[in-house]
């Protein structure tokens, strides 16, 4: 098994936004809140001033041992600071910076993950122990959000399929159901419907068995060579690169193998807008916006806007299109 220390130099370009850039934005936003004769009452997303100081109390991240991806795909990475400060994790609020602000206290250690259902050997595993023994690898993937923006993220993780075989799935296992931690005390979005954007918690997701077993599907425990920040789904999350980002369920506590298609959170809330499959597809628009192109969040400032065409299956069609042969993807969106 090839285990190498993460070397920063494998990430080519200068991919960092100066820390001052994102750190001081809180102050800016706080200043903005004072405008319009007091009528501009701060939204909850502008309320917390964690980044008002120059030293954000970011949750500590540990360096990981992993095998770098070789050859690394020719993709421009999204700077780490942007990956960590532009998140959808409604358990911590619906604003894009809410998760970074509100999740730093999330207790991720210890963390257990239960695998149950249609398996011969159900078990509860210690995620931190798993991380140290399973053999981690880097996967540089495109990430396409259903909201028509995208990133390229160097994940660290392991194949879900290989992991699941440890538990000996039975022949009745047709789908895999995932569940995020439910802990309203730690997750303000679960305490308050308004903060949590109306999602019925705990957040649940699902994959068909063949999707789950596909070598591109990983459980990620880190990004940019270190353990995941809470806002990105620490300590363990799903990454399915050919599907819209919301399929990538965060902070997973339970995986259940099941016979029938499991419910999924966004589909439950808005079935006409979000399907079970949620494969990235430029030909099938969201009812309220086009999915034909996307805004790539890369290096550079506000005006370095890059709009690019969205690729079928997010560019992973060669590997995964066969999973859906014969299916009407307009119907199974």
């Amino acid at each position, binding site marked *: 098994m090839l285990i190498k220390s993460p070397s920063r130099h494998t990430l080519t370009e200068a991919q960092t936004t100066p820390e001052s850039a994102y750190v001081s934005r809180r102050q800016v936003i706080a200043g903005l809140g004072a405008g319009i004769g007091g009528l501009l009452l701060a939204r909850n997303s502008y309320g917390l001033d964690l980044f008002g100081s120059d030293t954000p109390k970011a949750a500590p991240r540990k360096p990981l041992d992993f095998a770098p991806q070789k050859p690394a795909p020719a993709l421009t990475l999204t700077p780490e600071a*942007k990956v960590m400060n532009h998140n959808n994790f409604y358990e911590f609020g619906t604003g894009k910076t809410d998760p970074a602000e509100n999740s730093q206290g999330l207790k991720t250690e210890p963390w257990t993950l239960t695998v149950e259902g249609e398996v011969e050997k159900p078990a509860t595993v210690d995620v931190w122990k798993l991380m140290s023994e399973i053999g981690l690898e880097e996967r540089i993937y495109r990430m396409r959000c259903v909201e028509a923006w995208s990133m390229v993220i160097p994940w660290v993780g392991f194949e879900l399929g290989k992991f699941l075989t440890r538990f000996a799935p039975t022949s009745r296992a047709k789908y895999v159901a995932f569940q995020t931690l439910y802990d309203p005390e730690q997750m303000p979005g679960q305490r308050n419907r308004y903060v949590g954007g*109306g999602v019925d918690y705990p957040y649940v997701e699902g994959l068909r068995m063949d999707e789950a077993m596909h070598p591109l599907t990983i459980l990620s425990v880190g990004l940019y060579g270190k353990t995941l920040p809470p806002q990105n789904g620490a300590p363990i999350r799903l990454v399915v690169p050919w599907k819209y980002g919301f399929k990538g369920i965060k902070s997973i506590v339970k995986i259940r193998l099941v016979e029938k298609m499991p419910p999924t959170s966004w589909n439950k809330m808005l079935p006409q807008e979000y399907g079970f499959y949620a494969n990235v597809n430029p030909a099938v628009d969201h009812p309220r916006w086009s999915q034909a192109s996307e805004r790539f969040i890369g290096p550079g400032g506000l005006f370095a806007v890059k709009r690019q065409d969205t690729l079928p299956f997010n560019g992973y069609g060669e590997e995964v299109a066969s999973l859906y042969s014969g299916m009407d993807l307009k119907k199974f969106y």
Partner: protein
Amino acid sequence: MSGATHGASWRKLLAIVLQVGVHVGALLPVLWLFVAINRGDLGGDPVKELIHYLGMGTIRLLLLTLLISPLARVLHFGQLNRLRRPLGLWCFVWASLHFSAWLGLDLALDWSLIGSELVQRTYILLGFSAWLILFALAVTSLPALMRKMGKQWKKLHGLLYLVVLLACWHFWWSVKSGWIEPAIYTALALLLLWWRRQAVLRWLKSFR
């Protein structure tokens, strides 16, 4: 009525102070945005938040604009009505910034995409219609034009009622989930329109 003259000049002064306050209050956040952008202070990926911020600011300004007339009436403070023109113009400025941020920063001036989004997406069409009306109101806001247009001016500028509703509707349909916040704004808009229902009815009747 002995204090009337004194009270009148005091009110005049207050109206001027409020007028200055409107300009400062509406301009400062915009200046902040520009300074912050130039310094690269907005970091992360601020495009979505920038657009939302400008959009929310526009809706709040619209509500504030609607608040003036009825407030002037109940307070017997006619000079408050002077705030309507600057507030209305600021609504247009904020709406234009919101719209151009979407055009330039989100869609990167991809005109074919902009065209298809405008036609296909109802919530964008709603917002665009509201902006078009605000544009018409802004260009006809000169006092000289107001006198020249007479009754037509009143008819045209009554469209602000429609703008507020369109803006709320646009907001409601644009959010990914959660109806509470748009519902609050819509309720506030309806409340303000109800408060001035007689004026709204008069305006509606003027089209007969």
